[in-house]
C-alpha cells in the first residue's frame, strides 16, 4: 500500500438503494449488541466480577467508545461494506489485511460456535424442564464430553450452514422484529427487577456487598469475556452503503446504540444482583452444575456446603450460560421460559449473521487470491459461495464440539480484541496519510490518543483473558500461526502477483524471452547512459549465460487507468529502440515498455513479474544530503524494495573498463561484487581485489585475499590482490583507485542492521560519489531480512538513516 493508492478515491460502480434511517441502523446496532452475548455470557461474567459486574459493564462501555469513535470517524468517511477489513487493507497493505481477514474469519466463526452452544443449552433446558423430555446423559468420547447441548449445537451449526448455502437470508423486517422482541423482553425484566429493588432496598443493597469479591482482576476478566456484547459498530458500518446520508447517520448510530446498550446492560447487572436471592432450587442447580462442569463455570470458587454462605453472583457463575435465564425466573413471572425463548431466537439470528459474515470474509479472501480460489467458488444453481459456506460451517461446528463454552467465548473475545487493534492502528495511518483529503462526517477528538487508548485497552483486556482461559489464547495463537504459515507459503506470492498486475502493465515485447536462466533488468531513462548500462548489464548476463531485459517506464497520473497509458508510451518506445543499438551480438537483449503510476514500483513489479535476478540502475553520482533520500527517490525505493539483487552504476560515460578494483571484506554483498568483477574480467578487464586492514593485521588480510584469488583461479581468471593498512577505508579505496589508474570500482553494500535504514552504506556511497570514474555498487537480496525490515518499517517507522550521516 502506498500513498498513491488513494483511499479517498474509492468509488463504486454500483450504487445501492439508500433507504435506512438513523433509527433503522441504530436498531441494527442495538440488535447486534443486545443479542446472544448478553443472554449467554451474563451468568459467566457475574461469576467473575461479582456485584462488580455493574462496573465491568460500565467500564466496558467506556473502553469500547474509543474504538467506537474510530468506527464513527471512518464509517462516516468511508461507509462501505468492507468495514474494518477494507480500512486495514487500504492503510496497512494486503499482508496486514490477510491477517485481519484471517482473524475476522475465525472471530466470526467462533462467535457462531458460541451461539450454537448457547442455543443448545437453552433448548436442552426448555425440553427437560418445561416439556419433561428426558434426554441422554453426556457421553465421553476421547477427550470430549458430548451431551445433548452439543448435539443441538451441531444441529444448529449445520442447519444454518445449509440455510446460508440455500441463499435464504433474514429479511430486514424479521431482523427488526427479533430485535424489538428481545429488547422488549430485557426491558420488562429490568422493570420487574427495579420494582423489586425499590420495594426491598435493604435486602437488595446487602446483595451488593462485598462489591468486589474477586478484586479488580475479576472485573477485568468479566470485561474481556463480555466484550463481544459491546461491538455493534462493525455491523452499523457494514450497513453504511444503504443508509440515507451516511456521513451523519453512521456516526450517530454508533453513538446512540452504545449509549442505549451500555445503559441497558448496567441495569441488567443491577437487577441480576439486587433482585435475585439464593433459593434452595438455585442453590441445588448450582451444585449440580459445579459437579458436572456442564455450564462452563471455570475459574470460580466452589459452591459452599451451606446455602446461607452462598452468594448470588457465585451461584449465577456456576449456572453459566443459564445464569440469566434461571435468575429471570425469580425476577418476573415465567421469567425463565421467556428468557429461554428470547435467547433461542437471539442465538439463532446471531448464528445466521455470523455464519453469513464468516462465509463472506473467507469468500472475499478467496476472491482476493490470498486463500485458494475454491473459497471464491460460487455454486451454479444456488449462486452462493458453497465451499466457503461449508468450511465456515465446519469451523463453527468443530469449535463448538471441541471446546467448552467459556473457552469458546474467551477465544471469540480475544480474536475480536486483536482485530480491533489493527483497525485502531489503521485509523491512525488513514488520518495521517489521507486526512486532509477525506470528507469526514465525524472527526474524533484528541487524535491520535483516542485510537492509541483503544489499542492499549484492547490489548490489556485480551492479555488479561489469559488468566481466565489459557486454552482460548492457545487456540487463538495456533490459528494466527497457521495463518502466518499459509501467508508465507501460499498467499504472499499471490498477493504480490495481484499487486504487480494492478500497478503495472507491460505493453511492448519486441522479442520473446528465451527463458535463459539468469536475467538482468536494466531500466533506462536517460539515452546518454544507455550504452554504459547495457555494456555492464550484458557483461553480467554473458558471464551467467543469461539475458538482458531493457525497460523504460511511462508514468500516468493516479486518476488515469493504466489501460489508457499506451498513448503516452511513444517516447519510451523510441528510447528503447535507440538503446538497442548498444546491444551486443552474443547476449540476448529484449525490451519492454512499462506503464505505471510510479516509476520505482513499476521497476520492482517488472523484476518480480519477469523473475529478474538482478536490477541494474543508473545513477548520476550525486548523493542527496538534504532530502530524505540517499541516492534519489526512485533508486532508494527500488533498492529498498527489490526482490532480487540490485546494482547501481554511477554513469560517468565510460564505455570501456580495462582496470577494475574490487574492495572486498567478505560477506554476501562482497561475493556478489566479486561475481560481477568476474564478468568484467571475462570481458577483458584487469581485476584487482583490494582490502583495507583497519586492525593492522596485514597477514590475516593477505591470506583472506589469497583464498579469494584462488577461487577466481578455479574459474581460470587471474586477479591481482593488494592489502593496505589504514583506518579510513573510503580514503584508502579512493587513493588506491586513483593512484593505480583504475577506471572502475565494483563494491558490495556494507552490512546492515535490522533497524538501520541503509542502502549501500556510507563507504560505498561516498566512494561512488567521490570517485571520478565508474562505480558499481551491488547489494545481494536477502529475503528474510528484507521481509523483517519491511515489517518493522511498517510498524515502527523507517528507522534511522545511516546514509545521511556523512
Amino acid at each position, binding site marked *: 500500500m502506498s500513498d498513491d493508492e488513494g483511499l479517498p478515491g474509492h468509488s463504486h460502480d454500483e450504487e445501492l438503494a439508500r433507504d435506512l434511517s438513523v433509527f433503522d441502523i441504530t436498531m441494527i446496532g442495538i440488535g447486534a449488541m443486545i443479542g446472544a452475548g448478553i443472554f449467554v455470557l451474563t451468568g459467566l461474567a457475574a461469576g467473575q466480577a461479582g456485584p*462488580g459486574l455493574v462496573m465491568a459493564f460500565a467500564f466496558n462501555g467506556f473502553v469500547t467508545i474509543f474504538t467506537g469513535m474510530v468506527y464513527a470517524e471512518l464509517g462516516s468517511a468511508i461507509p462501505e461494506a468492507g468495514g474494518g477489513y477494507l480500512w486495514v487493507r487500504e492503510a496497512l497493505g494486503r499482508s496486514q489485511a490477510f491477517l485481519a481477514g484471517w482473524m475476522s474469519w475465525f472471530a466470526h466463526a467462533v462467535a457462531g460456535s458460541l451461539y450454537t452452544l448457547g442455543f443448545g443449552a437453552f433448548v436442552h433446558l426448555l425440553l427437560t424442564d418445561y416439556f419433561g423430555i428426558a434426554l441422554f446423559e453426556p457421553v465421553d468420547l476421547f477427550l470430549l464430553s458430548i451431551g445433548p447441548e452439543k448435539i443441538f449445537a451441531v444441529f444448529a451449526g449445520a442447519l444454518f450452514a445449509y440455510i446460508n448455502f440455500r441463499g435464504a437470508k433474514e429479511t430486514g423486517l424479521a431482523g427488526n422484529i427479533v430485535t424489538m422482541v428481545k429488547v422488549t423482553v430485557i426491558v420488562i425484566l429490568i422493570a420487574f427487577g427495579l420494582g423489586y429493588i425499590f420495594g426491598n432496598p435493604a435486602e437488595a443493597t446487602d446483595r451488593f456487598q462485598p462489591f468486589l469479591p474477586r478484586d479488580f482482576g475479576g472485573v477485568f476478566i468479566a470485561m474481556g469475556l463480555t466484550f463481544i456484547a459491546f461491538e455493534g459498530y462493525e455491523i452499523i458500518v457494514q450497513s453504511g452503503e444503504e443508509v440515507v446520508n451516511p456521513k451523519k447517520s453512521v456516526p450517530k448510530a454508533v453513538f446512540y446504540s452504545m449509549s442505549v446498550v451500555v445503559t441497558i446492560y448496567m441495569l441488567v447487572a443491577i437487577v441480576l444482583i439486587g433482585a435475585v436471592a439464593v433459593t434452595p432450587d438455585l442453590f441445588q442447580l448450582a451444585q449440580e452444575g459445579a459437579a458436572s462442569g456442564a455450564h462452563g463455570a471455570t475459574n470460580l470458587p466452589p459452591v459452599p456446603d451451606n446455602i446461607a454462605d452462598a452468594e448470588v453472583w457465585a451461584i449465577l457463575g456456576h449456572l453459566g450460560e443459564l445464569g440469566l435465564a434461571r435468575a429471570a425466573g425469580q425476577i418476573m413471572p415465567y421469567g425463565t421460559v421467556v428468557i429461554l425463548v428470547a435467547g433461542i431466537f437471539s442465538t439463532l439470528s446471531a448464528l445466521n449473521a455470523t455464519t453469513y459474515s464468516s462465509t463472506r470474509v473467507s469468500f472475499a479472501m478467496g476472491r482476493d487470491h490470498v486463500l485458494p480460489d475454491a473459497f471464491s467458488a460460487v455454486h451454479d444453481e444456488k449462486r452462493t459461495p458453497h465451499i466457503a459456506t461449508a468450511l465456515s460451517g465446519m469451523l463453527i461446528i468443530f469449535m463448538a464440539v471441541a471446546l467448552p463454552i467459556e473457552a469458546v467465548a474467551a477465544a471469540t473475545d480475544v480474536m475480536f480484541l486483536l482485530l480491533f487493534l489493527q483497525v485502531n492502528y489503521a485509523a491512525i495511518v488513514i488520518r495521517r496519510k489521507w486526512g486532509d483529503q477525506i470528507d469526514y462526517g465525524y472527526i474524533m477528538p484528541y487524535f491520535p490518543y483516542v485510537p492509541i487508548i483503544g489499542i492499549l485497552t484492547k490489548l490489556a483486556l485480551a492479555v488479561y483473558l489469559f488468566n481466565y482461559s489459557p486454552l482460548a489464547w492457545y487456540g487463538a495463537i495456533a490459528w494466527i500461526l497457521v495463518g502466518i504459515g499459509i501467508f508465507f507459503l501460499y498467499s504472499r506470492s499471490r498477493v504480490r502477483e495481484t499487486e504487480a498486475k494492478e500497478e503495472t502493465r507491460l505493453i511492448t515485447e519486441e522479442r520473446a524471452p528465451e527463458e535463459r536462466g539468469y536475467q538482468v533488468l536494466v531500466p533506462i531513462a536517460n539515452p546518454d547512459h544507455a550504452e554504459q548500462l547495457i555494456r555492464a548489464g550484458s557483461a553480467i548476463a554473458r558471464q551467467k549465460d543469461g539475458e538482458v531485459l531493457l525497460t523504460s517506464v511511462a508514468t500516468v497520473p493516479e486518476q488515469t487507468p493504466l489501460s489508457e497509458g499506451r498513448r503516452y508510451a511513444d517516447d519510451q518506445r523510441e528510447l528503447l529502440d535507440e538503446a538497442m543499438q548498444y546491444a551486443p551480438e552474443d547476449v540476448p537483449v529484449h525490451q519492454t515498455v512499462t506503464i505505471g503510476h510510479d516509476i520505482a514500483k513499476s521497476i520492482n513489479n517488472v523484476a518480480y513479474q519477469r523473475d529478474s535476478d538482478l536490477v541494474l540502475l543508473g545513477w548520476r553520482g550525486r548523493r542527496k544530503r538534504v532530502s530524505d533520500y540517499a541516492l534519489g527517490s526512485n533508486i532508494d525505493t527500488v533498492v529498498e524494495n527489490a526482490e532480487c539483487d540490485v546494482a547501481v552504476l554511477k554513469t560517468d560515460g565510460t564505455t570501456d573498463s580495462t582496470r577494475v578494483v574490487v574492495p572486498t571484506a567478505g560477506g554476501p554483498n562482497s561475493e556478489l561484487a566479486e561475481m560481477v568483477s568476474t564478468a568484467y574480467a571475462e570481458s577483458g578487464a584487469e581485476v584487482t581485489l583490494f582490502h583495507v586492514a583497519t586492525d593492522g593485521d596485514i597477514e590475516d588480510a593477505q591470506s583472506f585475499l589469497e583464498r579469494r584469488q584462488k577461487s577466481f583461479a578455479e574459474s581460470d581468471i587471474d586477479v591481482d590482490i593488494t592489502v593496505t593498512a589504514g583506518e579510513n577505508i573510503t580514503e584508502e579505496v579512493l587513493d588506491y583507485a586513483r593512484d593505480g589508474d583504475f577506471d572502475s570500482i565494483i563494491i558490495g553494500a556494507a552490512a546492515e542492521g535490522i533497524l538501520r535504514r541503509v542502502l549501500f552504506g556510507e563507504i560505498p556511497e561516498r566512494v561512488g560519489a567521490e570517485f571520478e570514474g565508474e562505480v558499481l555498487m551491488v547489494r545481494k537480496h536477502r529475503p528474510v531480512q528484507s521481509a523483517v525490515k519491511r515489517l518493522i518499517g511498517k510498524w515502527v517507522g523507517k528507522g534511522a538513516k545511516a546514509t545521511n550521516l556523512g
Partner: protein
Amino acid sequence: MVSTVVLGAVLALLAWIGLQVAVIHGKYVVDKIAAGEYQKGPFSDTMDGGSNE
C-alpha cells in the same frame, strides 16, 4: 472510609457519564460538520496549521 460499594458505584457512574459525554460530543461534532461550522480537523491543517482535534 468509603465503602467499596460506594466507590464502585461512583466509578461505574463516572464511566457511564464519560460514555454519555463522548456520545453527546459525537452528535455535536457530526451536526457542526454537517452545518460546515466545524474547524478542528485534519482539513484545517492545510488552512491554518491549527490543531488536529
